[in-house]
């Protein structure tokens, strides 16, 4: 056999194996891609095309819950299908979100106008009760950070406090205005507000207690453990979970040592996912938090450079506490800072 012939025979063998590999690999790959939670829109559209409208809407709802998309398409799609199904009230609740994420797709001054439009449509859904001067200042700071990150600084500056609060709520915010931490049953006699941004333009982490910022501006997961009644700071720290798993371990041990009923406020600055451990995730669950972000097909608290702000109670059932998060990016659209807070109406506060 000549050398050329030998080469051709072996090439044919290798290419045949590679062809066989492709024949079995691609159907599997396409099947997996279709069921990848990250591709929920395609899967939902397929289901809808097959006449399974209810299942399709469920898929989009789950997709939105697991990805917190920063593009308007998923919300618009859900709104359309809800409208077609006669659920116009539920569809209407999506108006501010759709308007907000549509606005982020606009350019410069058009975006500013569009964001203001989104705020207007969300005012009725997110009413702000009477708040203290400190909390008002905190909300303004949070809104300013969000405005800078979204490139609508001037527009946000011109909004009223109520409008700024509505904007923070529409932008993935999670606020309690009756003093209760989510559905934990624990009520705080003081205001606690948290803001975080991961990969967003304006990287911040704030934990405001009665208008005083407890965070230090360093990279990592900022934590403040507070006494639920007095608001006294029991532990305060920042753990650079991006740089080292030892930091995650240190934080897990700190959370573990806290007594039941302690209030925990958490905010990520830049990133805290790189060295996240199962142990630390378990400790966060112990504060009533729940991994919601679908990353690589599994629920996690946050991925690389996600924004994440949360307030929990040690011993609460996972999912009952409060958290807010935004991805680093969704479908090419960047994420944004998020805020989370417990606001006690001024009239109901002791000493007010």
């Amino acid at each position, binding site marked *: *056999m000549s*050398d*050329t012939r*030998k*080469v051709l*025979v*072996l*090439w044919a063998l*290798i*290419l045949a*194996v*590679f062809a066989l*590999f492709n024949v*079995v*690999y691609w159907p*599997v*790959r396409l099947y*997996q891609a279709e069921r*990848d939670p990250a591709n929920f829109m395609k899967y939902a559209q397929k289901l809808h095309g097959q006449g399974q409208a209810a299942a399709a809407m469920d898929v989009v709802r789950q997709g939105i819950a697991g990805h917190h998309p920063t593009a308007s398409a998923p919300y618009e799609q859900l709104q359309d299908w809800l409208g077609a199904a006669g659920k116009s009230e539920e569809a209407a609740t999506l108006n501010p979100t759709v308007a907000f994420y549509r606005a982020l797709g606009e350019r410069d001054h058009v975006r500013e106008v569009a964001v203001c439009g989104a705020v207007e449509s969300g005012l009725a859904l997110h009413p702000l009760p009477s708040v203290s001067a400190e909390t008002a200042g905190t909300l303004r700071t949070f809104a300013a950070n969000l405005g800078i990150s979204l490139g609508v600084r001037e527009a946000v500056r011109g909004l009223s406090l109520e409008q700024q609060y509505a904007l923070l709520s529409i932008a993935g915010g999670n606020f309690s205005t009756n003093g209760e931490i989510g559905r934990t049953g624990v009520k705080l006699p003081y205001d606690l507000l948290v803001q975080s941004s991961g*990969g967003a333009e304006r990287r911040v982490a704030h934990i405001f207690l009665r208008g005083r910022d407890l965070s230090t501006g360093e990279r990592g997961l900022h934590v403040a453990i507070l006494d639920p009644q007095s608001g006294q700071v029991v532990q305060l720290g920042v753990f650079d979970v*991006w740089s080292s*798993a030892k930091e*995650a371990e240190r934080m897990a041990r700190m959370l573990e040592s806290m007594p039941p009923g302690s209030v925990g406020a958490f905010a990520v600055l830049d*990133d805290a*996912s*790189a*060295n*996240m*451990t*199962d142990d630390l995730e378990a400790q966060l669950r112990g504060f009533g938090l729940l991994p919601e972000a679908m990353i*690589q*097909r*599994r629920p*996690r608290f946050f991925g*690389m*450079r996600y924004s994440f702000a949360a307030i929990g109670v040690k011993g609460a059932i996972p999912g009952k506490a409060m958290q807010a998060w935004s991805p*680093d990016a969704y479908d090419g659209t960047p994420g944004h800072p998020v805020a989370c807070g417990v606001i006690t109406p001024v009239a109901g506060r002791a000493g007010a």
Partner: protein
Amino acid sequence: MNDHPIWLYATVGLGALLTSLLLVPVFRWLAVRMDVVDRPREARKIHKRIVPYLGGLPFYFSFLGTIFYVEAFHPEYSQPVFFPMCVAGTLIVLMGVYDDIKDMSSLKKLLVELVLLGGLYFYGFQTTEIASPFGGSFNVGWVAVVITPLWIAGVINAVNFSDGLDGLAGGLVFICAASIFAIAFKNGQVGSCLMMACLMGATLGFLRYNFNPASIFMGDAGALFLGFVLGATTLLEKQKGVTTIALAVPMVVMAVPILDTILSFYRRLQRARQGKFFTPDRNHLHHRLLDLGLTQRQVVLALYFVSAWMGLMAFVLSVVPSTYSFLILLLAAMAVGGGVVVLRFIEGLSQGDE
């Protein structure tokens, strides 16, 4: 995130080991039957008998098997760059087979490698940052399109050059893969761990037939493919959303083959005036150790030992704070430099004896 699928690594490693153990004899039979063998005609060849090639093809099959298995049963660990790696790996293997049979010139081989690997840049290996061993990283911008293929081609050639003694390239790749696995494991890099588990299993199975006295060689098809997977894997993981070439750690891990490549390049530069830049010689590290009177096994084991120490040093480098990295790198450089000086000194002594 540090939740490693240990069972998946074990399955992949074991699968690759079994694939090698089962397929290497098949390819040995095929190579003999097709007369794809290495005849020791050149002075630089160490072995004195005919040895079949094609022992490296099971690496490729193990790799394809791993990619398929991960996609089918653990899609959460699949990465978009895996398939482009399969395509590039296939082309590398085709080139290696051609080289094994028809002897391709080093220049042509390098050019094909660079074009091929340059293409990878546009399929996910978009490396724009180089990590500094002293912490942080710096952006190299468009130069990355040049650095990416150069880096992988460098590793490919380092592995290829070390394939001069029975069990040497396979063993060195096993040690490098184990070191990179340990570092990737520590960093929570599942994709790299999967690739390295595959390489460890495949090379271990191959060493069963390739350790001195070898009954089969991996050939260029195997050496180029192993180098490709090693080099590409170091670019696989992303830090803060950008792929970062952390050059220091893999360079220390692969210090032995890389040092050999650098010395070989230096010798070739000296020969360039005679127009012999791309002509191979008999002055690689293993040749020189053999010339000192060591047996093949002793040379191979000595180089395994050095490589394992370097791997350990690389692991330490990846663990210590960046302020200590300089010290570790200095130690590594001193160890490598000292090794070269000692080797030259002993060579001088033995020449004096003659």
